[in-house]
């Protein structure tokens, strides 16, 4: 026993990646581990018997918590509300001090409270990761909003969206759009009241320089450069050209009063926004020019980054080069096509046909829809269509624009992945399971196969968590997931649908298949448990049912049934004393 305790103490003192210090009832330090030494630069011998509130004045703001702890309370201080407990300066762009989550609890010996124990966890990296993830979601949402407005035919609304979007993405103080007019750049939109005209040849001016270079230009502190800025408060300046290879439209400029205000991710997001904005502006110009002559309209559409088509009497009578590029057909082929369903993927066919008929018959005047489409070579892409009824040469026609949103869809897919899988084990979570299970059942019904559902519960999860700690608990779940992955086939569904509950759903031919799977699972678990250095055994209680999808039963009921059988298995094991959990 003594050796065991000495071992633990040695580990707490030297190796645990947490700051631990213990005080007596007068808050004088009696234990100080090496994490504390390393991070505070204070050696144990220098702090022993010193009062924590004198040694660390910042602790006075949470003194009342310490007093509560002497009364028997345990407290947790989250990073979100307290930032840190002990001020430890760190070299980091975002945080001046190490971010900490802290637990303080009584130091009891024989039920007498002898002092306090403080455990500090460094959560800086984790908080940064979480912020990063949120920033990505925010950026994606903003980019999506701008993209939605791209097919707007109102130039002013378009400019407004770009300004608002760029401010949201970057946190800049000012966002300005200059458009090219003759030999000048003219300020056309800004989130403040400014009027400016810049000479295109003026190399000392960041916007003109960026347009000349035809690339984004970032100046982290303009005061240290030869550049000049009309806004005396601006320190960081980022200028992003608007337009495409063939035509320069203008410049989007972001100014911040802070030095080095934009990081790499900001710039990438803003570049995407500038690209989307360019397409939007071009598109808006296109519609403006519709009011003008047809020649001008044709020239613009030829150059557009947006696919444009005109349909009359169920024939395509015009398609611009971008549309041809997107679809993979030549203009000749395109003009011969009379069945537009060849462009559309089977899954969206019904919706597409309904929309087309409604438009063609004049039930609706405009439509804006996303469709899963197919290129001539069979590859798929996602397109957003914006189609209006119009008159061409005196007869009704449909004028449409098409935007490639495949990248956006892919990003959305990635985000969806985040929420149908369980981050800990990489298996599907409950939502993922339910979504995909319906699909599998339909598949089994069509293939005339049966379905095997197994409900599995990791035995003694509570014991593992309570005795070995949550980290080991997480490890047990991950190891179980690994074993399950090894047991089942790639096309089977495996999910973690609750704390320690796993479920399997797969197609099978008969009862025997079930026995094969079960014995394989048991074999793998046994092998796993034989590995060296294990502090616990993996053991699963299992309930399984075989379901014939020809006689449909709601999935929830099937799960309930399997769950019930699992509990019976668990109960039986307990009765038999067959719970093998600890080493």
């Amino acid at each position, binding site marked *: 026993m003594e050796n065991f305790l000495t071992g633990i103490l040695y580990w707490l003192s030297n190796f645990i990646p947490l700051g631990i210090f213990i005080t007596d009832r007068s808050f004088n330090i009696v234990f100080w581990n090496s994490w504390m030494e390393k991070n505070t630069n204070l050696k144990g011998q220098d702090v022993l018997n010193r009062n924590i509130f004198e040694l660390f004045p910042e602790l006075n703001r949470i003194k009342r918590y310490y007093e509560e702890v002497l009364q*028997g309370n345990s407290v*947790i*201080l989250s990073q979100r509300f307290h930032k840190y407990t002990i001020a430890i300066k760190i070299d980091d762009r975002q945080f001046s001090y190490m971010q900490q989550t802290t637990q303080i*609890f009584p130091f009891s010996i024989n039920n007498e409270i002898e002092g306090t124990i403080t455990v500090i966890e460094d959560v800086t990296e984790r908080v940064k990761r979480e912020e990063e993830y949120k920033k990505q979601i925010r950026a994606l949402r903003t980019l999506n909003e701008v993209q939605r407005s791209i097919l707007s035919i109102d130039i002013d609304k378009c400019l407004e969206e770009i300004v608002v979007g760029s401010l949201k993405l970057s946190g800049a103080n000012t966002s300005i759009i200059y458009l090219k007019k003759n030999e000048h750049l003219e300020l056309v939109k800004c989130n403040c009241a400014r009027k400016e005209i810049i000479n295109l040849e003026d190399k000392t001016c960041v916007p003109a320089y960026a347009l000349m270079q035809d690339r984004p230009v970032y100046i982290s502190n303009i005061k240290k450069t030869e550049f000049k800025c009309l806004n005396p408060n601006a320190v960081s300046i980022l200028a992003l050209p608007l337009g495409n290879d063939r035509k320069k439209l203008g410049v989007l400029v972001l100014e911040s009063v802070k030095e080095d205000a934009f990081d790499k991710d900001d710039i990438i997001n803003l570049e995407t926004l500038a690209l989307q904005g360019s397409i939007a502006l071009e598109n808006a110009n296109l519609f403006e020019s519709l009011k003008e002559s047809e020649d001008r309209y044709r020239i613009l559409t030829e150059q557009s980054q947006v696919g444009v088509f005109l349909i009359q009497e169920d024939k395509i009578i015009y398609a611009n080069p971008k549309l041809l590029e997107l679809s993979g057909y030549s203009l000749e082929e395109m003009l011969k096509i009379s069945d537009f369903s060849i462009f559309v993927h089977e899954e969206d066919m019904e919706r597409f046909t309904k929309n087309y008929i409604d438009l063609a018959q004049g039930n609706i005047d405009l439509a804006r829809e996303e469709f899963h489409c197919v290129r001539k070579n069979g590859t798929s892409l996602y397109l957003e269509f914006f189609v209006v009824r119009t008159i061409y040469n005196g007869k009704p026609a449909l004028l449409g624009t098409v935007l490639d949103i495949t990248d956006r869809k892919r990003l959305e897919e990635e985000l969806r992945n985040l929420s149908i899988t369980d981050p800990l084990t990489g298996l599907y979570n409950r939502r993922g399971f339910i979504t995909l299970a319906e699909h599998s059942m339909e598949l089994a019904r069509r293939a005339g196969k049966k379905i095997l559902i197994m409900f599995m519960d990791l035995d003694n999860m509570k014991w593992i968590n309570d005795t070995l700690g949550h980290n080991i608990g997480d490890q047990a779940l991950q190891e179980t997931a690994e074993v399950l992955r090894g047991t089942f086939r790639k096309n089977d569904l495996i999910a973690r649908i609750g*704390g*320690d509950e796993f479920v399997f759903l797969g197609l099978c031919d008969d009862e025997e298949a079930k026995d094969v799977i079960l014995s394989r699972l048991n074999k793998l678990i046994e092998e796993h448990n034989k590995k060296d250095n294990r502090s616990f055994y993996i053991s699963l209680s299992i309930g399984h049912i075989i379901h014939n999808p020809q006689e449909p039963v709601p999935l929830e009921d099937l799960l309930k049934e399997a769950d019930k059988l699992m509990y019976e298995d668990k109960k039986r094991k307990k009765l038999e004393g067959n719970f093998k959990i600890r080493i």
Partner: protein
Amino acid sequence: MILTEKQRDSLTELINIAFHRTTASLSELTGNRILLDPPKIDIVPIEEISEKLGEKLNKEIATVHQIFTGPVSGDALLLMDYNGAIKLASLVSGEDIELDYFSLSLREVLMEMGNILLNACLGVFGNLLEMHISFSVPKLHLEELDSLLDTLTIVNEELKYALIAFTKFRVKDSAIDGYLVIILGVASLEKLIEALERLG
């Protein structure tokens, strides 16, 4: 019926006092005005708890759990819907985007809030029973209601009762359902009722 009308009133009032204390601490901590609706109190044998809680909670729940020990010992829990818990933690910590998963930071926020609420309520009992109660560090469980209840009922050495207080957290135009549950052995419950009698 385990409590008389009068005992229930006294108990409601006591927990309400703890709630007031809690809302003050939480508002100060988070910088947001947080209110707790007056509690609806019930005491039921532990076998009936599932039915009782199932009324307002979905299957997936988030629970802040503290074990208390001393002359009276048991489990103190704050139970919420998984999604409700994310929403509450996001609101009080001023998240500007709605997430559909529980980040570790938000889990800690919920733990700290639960900690403050449970400490305040148990503090009231401690005073009432004139005894000294110690609390463990809070843990957060994310699981299904049934499996949580299983872990609480599994060791059934003595008859157990659950004191359930239903409330709503009100933050920024939103109301989020929450249950405060304190599980006591029959002996502790008797002491509690006796003390309530003395109060009346």
